[in-house]
């Protein structure tokens, strides 16, 4: 059974139909990518699935439960979290604190225990700190643990965001352009990390402009253009689909821009 089921999702901004009747599903351990030219509605789609925008049509089902338009913190509790295209980092906290904050639901803080620094609260914080360090290890950031997050390079912040999202313990992870602005080496690292996460059973929905990466790691690709789904299938199917080539890569008269 699919863990994430999107059907008929749509939203308008003013008179513009930004996304219209988009539906697909994601299975555990699967990497599904949403691609399309700039302005195709990929990030808008992400924002609707993750509860940032309220869709005016369609539904989002998580584990068979209707979670359409639920607030992001409720979705996180139910096992869905995301990263952002334009980084959303807790700049003034340390790298480690950023990831520890990701364990918020595990810590489930009690304000009284925290104000009085009761042993139970301290013990839980210490446990979570340990786990956070392991996640930092995984994204090769353990050396920077005590640094203020704002001082990190762009590529490192991208990895920090993924580590923070993993701290939530998601069943479904939405990655909005995780490799944007990263150099070739960093892209490859993120690439490997995503494949590894999928292998561990997490369902991954990816928006990414790096076509080589998308074709290499995706199990399934959904192509959007002008807010509509124009094609869907395996990387091979999609790359051969004439509609996709026309809409996404340009027709023969125009030079092809794979990076959209």
């Amino acid at each position: 059974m699919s863990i994430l089921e999107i059907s008929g999702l749509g939203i308008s901004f003013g008179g513009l139909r930004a996304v219209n009747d988009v539906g697909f599903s994601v299975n555990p351990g699967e990497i599904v990518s949403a691609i399309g030219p700039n302005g195709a509605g990929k990030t808008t789609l992400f924002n609707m699935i993750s509860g940032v925008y309220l869709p005016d049509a369609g539904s989002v089902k998580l584990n068979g439960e209707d979670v359409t338009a639920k607030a992001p913190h409720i979705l996180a509790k139910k096992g869905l979290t995301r990263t952002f295209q334009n980084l959303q980092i807790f700049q003034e906290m340390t790298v480690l604190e950023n990831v520890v904050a990701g364990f918020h639901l595990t810590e489930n803080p009690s304000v009284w225990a925290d104000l009085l620094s009761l042993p139970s609260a301290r013990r839980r914080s210490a446990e979570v700190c340990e786990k956070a360090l392991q996640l930092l290890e995984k994204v090769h950031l353990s050396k920077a643990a005590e640094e203020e997050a704002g001082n990190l390079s762009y590529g490192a912040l991208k990895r920090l965001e993924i580590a923070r999202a993993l701290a939530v313990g998601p069943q479904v992870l939405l990655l909005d352009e995780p490799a944007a602005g990263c150099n070739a080496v960093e892209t490859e690292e993120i690439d490997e990390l995503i494949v590894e996460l999928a292998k561990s059973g997490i369902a991954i929905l990816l928006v990414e402009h790096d076509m080589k990466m998308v074709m290499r790691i995706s199990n399934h690709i959904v192509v959007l253009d002008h807010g509509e789904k124009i094609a869907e299938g395996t990387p091979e199917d999609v790359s051969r689909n004439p509609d996709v080539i026309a809409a996404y890569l340009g027709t023969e008269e125009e030079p092809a821009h794979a990076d959209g």
Partner: protein
Amino acid sequence: MTLKNNWVQLAILAVIIVILPTFFPSGYYYRVGALVFVNALSVVGLVILIGYAGQISLGHAGFAGIGAYACALAPVHLGIPPVLAILLGAAISAVLALLIGRPILRLKGYYLGVATLGFGILVSMVLSNERGLTGGPDGMSVPSLGLRPLLRDMGLRLSGGEFWYIFNAAALLIGIWIAINLYQSATGRAMRALHGSETAAQTVGIDVARFKLQAFIISAVYASVGGSLLALQNGFITPDVAGFMHSVEMVTMAVLGGVGSVLGATFGAAVLTLLPQILTVFHEYEHLVLGLVMILVMIFLPLGLLPSLAARIRWRGV
């Protein structure tokens, strides 16, 4: 670099509090010290609201007013001892903060500032207009705390100034201890996270509305206890304690000292409490100089006095 809120800060402050009286030329300075501590206590509450959670309040003097008048009224009308009146005032402030915080904390930035401003004005108007109960703008006397005679019976003779210096210092140190606990805890991290990015905080499961409200309530309790101690120490109280100028003063102390750090807040409270006393030599230009000092600090030390100085001298580990 930011000043981390940790035990080093608490220890430094405790040492300063103990050593300082050896430099006092007269008993009057105990009173000044006590006033600094009580202001600092309220400001530490604002550090939690502004510095941790990133929310603003221009009406926190309203809670100080509630705490102050609880100590003036409850012993007379309800017959409860002043020490318990402090707790009663804190409880009333917490409930009020819960009730008004829920709707107004949806607002952001200037809008939140104006809404809290309205709350503060409301409280000070009620205190001014309920003459029958509060004596109106002329103020009213506050019963004595009653701890000093108790200590005398136990053989410990303290002057009024000495007693309040110790009592308020203890209250401040406890207040800072709690604020540091909070900073290092999961609740404090959630507050600082939503300060950094509400969107990201939500995606990791943080209920943003809940933690803003908690910060608001906690800071209201600090302001209330501060107001109570101020009233008890002075033995007299007027609605000015809940006035707009007092709210602004509190925020200024927090920002001037360095709003992210509890030690900075104490420093800011000390500077703004002492400066007017020092500036009396300038007579009518006192306010002019005070305003000028504040403008210059914000231009040249934008992080606040203490964090900026710490960054300059690379005061690591604090």
